[in-house]
């Protein structure tokens, strides 16, 4: 019995040599690298234009406030809930180890410091990149696909000034505020769990928490959250603005906005931590503060 070819006549794949295959793979890799640099350059220009517009022309109050409401007010419940449970989970995870050394009253210091410096800013930013970043990319992407951004330009309005600046500014101002909220709720959640569920003495818990946590820790978290807010705003708006046509393009813009924001947040977190610890040790070289570099 003769076998039937799965390919119509003329479409049979041609066998390629190893050298051709390797050269094509190298060319593909080169293409990816080039496109990566192109995107990076494009994003930098986009950020530059956004900042230039933000400085030169104030956004309209109604546009700014409606974005602030969407980004700030509507995110409060989810950020507060996330913060509370992160504080509680930290208490659960740390309790066994600390009890083994009889240090359970020190838990307040660990939970609060971790919330202020690391988990509060990073998890709030991750949460917000998912909630706000994806929504912004999808919204702007839909506007791109349905020619609403072209319509803005055709009427002599600048889309960056009109669409990006209010969103970027809202992220820049409100993500730090939401981070403070997440940190506060984490501290409350951790305290409630430690005191009421784990039965740790509240007086010693509070005294240790106060001893270890300084104003610098709050500043540390807020500085990080400003950078994270700017990242979410810029990456999401950029992805929305450069959305590919169709429903698939909008979906892809929303997903890419979240993934890229998250990756940049994690990378920034490392470098900001190193930088801020260096700054701390420069200002207070003899300070015994916990975790300081």
């Amino acid at each position, binding site marked *: 019995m003769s076998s039937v070819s799965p390919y119509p006549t003329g479409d049979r794949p041609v066998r390629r040599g190893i050298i051709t295959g390797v050269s094509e793979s190298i060319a593909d890799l080169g293409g990816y690298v080039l496109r990566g640099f192109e995107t990076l350059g494009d994003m930098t220009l986009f950020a530059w234009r956004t900042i230039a517009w933000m400085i030169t022309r104030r956004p309209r109050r109604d546009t700014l406030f409606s974005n602030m409401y969407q980004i700030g007010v509507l995110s409060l419940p989810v950020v507060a809930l996330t913060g509370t449970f992160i504080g509680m989970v930290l208490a659960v995870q740390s309790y066994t180890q600390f009890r083994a050394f009889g240090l359970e009253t020190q838990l307040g210091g660990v939970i609060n410091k971790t919330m202020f410096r690391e988990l509060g800013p990073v998890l709030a930013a991750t949460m917000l990149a998912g909630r706000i970043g994806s929504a912004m990319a999808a919204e702007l992407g839909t506007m791109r696909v*349905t020619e609403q951004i072209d319509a803005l330009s055709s*009427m002599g309005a600048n889309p960056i000034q009109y669409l990006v600046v209010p969103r970027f500014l809202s992220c820049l101002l409100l993500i730090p505020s939401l981070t403070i909220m997440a940190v506060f709720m984490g501290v409350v959640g951790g305290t409630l769990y430690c005191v009421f569920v784990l039965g740790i003495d509240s007086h010693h818990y509070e005294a240790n928490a106060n001893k270890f946590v300084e104003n610098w820790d709050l500043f540390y978290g807020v500085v990080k959250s400003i950078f994270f807010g700017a990242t979410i705003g810029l990456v999401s708006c950029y992805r929305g603005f450069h959305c590919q046509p169709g429903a698939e393009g909008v979906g892809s813009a929303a997903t890419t906005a979240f993934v890229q924001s998250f990756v940049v947040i994690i990378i920034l977190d490392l470098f900001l931590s190193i930088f801020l610890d260096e700054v701390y040790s420069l200002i207070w070289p003899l300070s015994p503060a916990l975790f300081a570099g």
Partner: protein
Amino acid sequence: MVAIEPILEVDQLHVRFGRQQVLRGIDFEVPRGQSLAIIGESGCGKTVLLKSIIGLVWPQQGRVRFDGQQLDQLTEKELAEERIRFGFVFQNSALFDSMTIYENILFPLRQHRPGEVEEHHQQLFSRLAEVGLPRSVLEKRPAELSGGMRKRVGLARALVMQPEVLLYDEPTTGLDPIVSDVINELMIRTKQNSPVTSIIVTHDMKTARKVADRVVMLYPLSRLEPGEPQIIFDGTQDEIEASKDRRVSQFVRGEAGDRLMEMSEPGAGLEN
């Protein structure tokens, strides 16, 4: 006879997206007050041409001169000011979803002449009457309107700044024949009411016949090497009807001719 000076001149326009050449060497001019229809089959670059005129798409080569000014030499601010002199009616209306119809129509006025509320309302109501929409639509959002109504709102928004040039992108696409005719009538009435120059991109021959003074046909020169459309016809409506060029006469009559055979050949119809 004194020749009317052109308000818009397109000179050797080349547009390419990546490897795909969309327009090659497009040349035409539009005298002040004239209605020009740009016809051509779907995907031949008519919308790209229209968008290139106001810098929504930047050409790789060529020039667009509007009222004596070369648009690619203007700063961003100057270009924004020139764009106010154009009105653009988009294919799918491109109304802002998050705004009411009231806010949509007033958007350009609020953007460029803030504070003049009385003048804004005067303009709003007269444009609304011009396109035949009731005031009850003002509180609605675009999603609550039919396609024909959205087109009319788009036209009202384009007219609100009293533009010198109106650019229509497929104004009757997706509408039933009656609503299409209403839109055609609105375009004619708009032209009668104001000395506006119109460029209408369409593949609807009825619209071209009814509204345009002059017709230009954009045609991809080779189906087997897609892209690179050029203008293969520039003349009056009577001339296009009587054209001996097979490609023009087939398009006007809506006949596929040997196109079906060409499209089935390997490589035909590739986008990239």
